[in-house]
């Protein structure tokens, strides 16, 4: 532990307050004298931002000379005590570690940007372009049309699509050439979904047609309602199970609290865990050799802190001098 003498505080005070070093030394000496004077005068002196100085009297005490065994009295004296202000404790407790501040990374080389940033910048235009346009109209390339849709002939309104189904090989391929020609508002995640709202009417009117152009979207909406309904049913069932489990657990918790309420007035609630064992704990303990209130507290409550509660309940004049065989009431 390094120590700092008066010179350093005076030098630091001089540099901090802008006074010369002699004035700083004079001030520090005057500070010490003033504190002693004020403490003598009124018993205590308070310095804002630092703490309180008090003169405390230490009483005479008896001691023994080790060599001769002679007893003698050490006279009492006055000493100057100090109690720090709370703000000082807060400052010293929250002292940050004295670590060097790392230098900020250089910002001169934009080429050295992380690849993540580059990828983000690369992705941003591609992300922006589809968002600017209506999502329903753009046709992604990735979705392959089913064979039934490809092979079925198309109406005059959908002539553009008929040309491509003539070559089923090409239409089945997921890549780009097939997709741009398809006029349906097909999305990547759910290829049959957009077809349903637009072609829902003709599908209903001609449900059985598999040859006409309306047959193209006819097959697609059918599986969707079944899966969605089952999903909803499964989620609802899970929610009901969770709610029932929560309610049952809450009921179980409430039951032991109700049983523990009618405790006697003399019981001391020490711990949440110890309350559960209160019914199993005996009410009286007979003191045996080698036992003390502290050991009894540890045995029954798991902590020596309950010794005070046991002492208070039994009202022993001297907790260290309890005769053997005494019945000790347990809170």
């Amino acid at each position: 532990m390094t120590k700092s003498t008066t010179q350093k505080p005076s030098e630091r005070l001089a540099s901090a307050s802008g006074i010369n070093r002699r004035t700083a030394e004079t001030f520090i000496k005057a500070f010490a004298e003033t504190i002693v004077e004020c403490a003598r005068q009124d018993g205590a002196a308070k310095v804002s931002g630092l703490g309180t100085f008090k003169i405390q009297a230490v009483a005479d005490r008896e001691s023994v000379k080790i060599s001769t065994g002679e007893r003698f009295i050490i006279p009492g004296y006055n000493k100057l005590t100090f109690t720090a202000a709370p703000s000082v404790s807060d400052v010293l407790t929250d002292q940050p570690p004295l670590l060097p501040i790392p230098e900020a990374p250089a910002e001169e080389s934009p080429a050295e940007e992380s690849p993540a940033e580059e990828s983000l910048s690369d992705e941003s235009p591609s992300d922006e372009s589809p968002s600017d346009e209506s999502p329903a109209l753009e046709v992604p390339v990735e979705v392959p049309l089913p064979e039934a849709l490809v092979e079925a002939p198309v109406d005059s309104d959908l002539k553009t699509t008929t040309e491509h189904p003539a070559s089923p090989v090409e239409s089945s391929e997921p890549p780009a050439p097939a997709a741009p020609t398809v006029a349906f508002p097909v999305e990547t995640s759910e290829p049959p979904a957009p077809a349903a709202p637009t072609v829902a009417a003709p599908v209903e009117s001609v449900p059985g047609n598999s040859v006409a152009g309306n047959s193209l979207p006819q097959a697609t909406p059918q599986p969707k309602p079944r899966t969605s309904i089952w999903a909803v049913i499964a989620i609802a069932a899970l929610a009901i199970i969770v709610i029932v489990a929560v309610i049952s657990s809450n009921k179980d918790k409430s039951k032991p609290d109700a049983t523990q309420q009618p405790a006697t007035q003399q019981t001391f609630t020490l711990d949440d865990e110890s309350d559960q064992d209160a019914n199993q704990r005996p009410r009286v303990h007979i003191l045996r050799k080698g036992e003390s209130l502290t050991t009894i507290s540890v045995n029954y409550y798991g902590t020596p802190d309950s010794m005070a509660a046991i002492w208070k309940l039994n009202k022993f004049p001297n907790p260290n001098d309890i005769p053997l065989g005494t019945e000790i009431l347990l809170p």
Partner: protein
Amino acid sequence: MVTSRQFINALAKNAGMTTNEASYILEHFVNVIIDTVQAEDSVTIQGFGVFEKKKKAEKRLFNPTTGQRRVIPASTTLAFKQSPKLKTNLNPDTANTAATKKNNSEE
């Protein structure tokens, strides 16, 4: 108890400066003490005492009446230890008796 204002007035009188100056320098002096203790763990003022950094361990309190438990976290505070000169200054009688004892033993 002497308040801060009364202390500053007495300090200005002893140091031979105005109360404003004394208040200004006192504020800087307090900061110097705290900063020095933070950096070097202690500050010694000759003829007065030593300001040291003192660690307080975590404390667990238990109220047997209510059964409440509370934990006071560990903290660091400022401690002061008076110098022997200050002790003799505060206790002139014991200083005299100690001096006479020493003289008697030498004789």
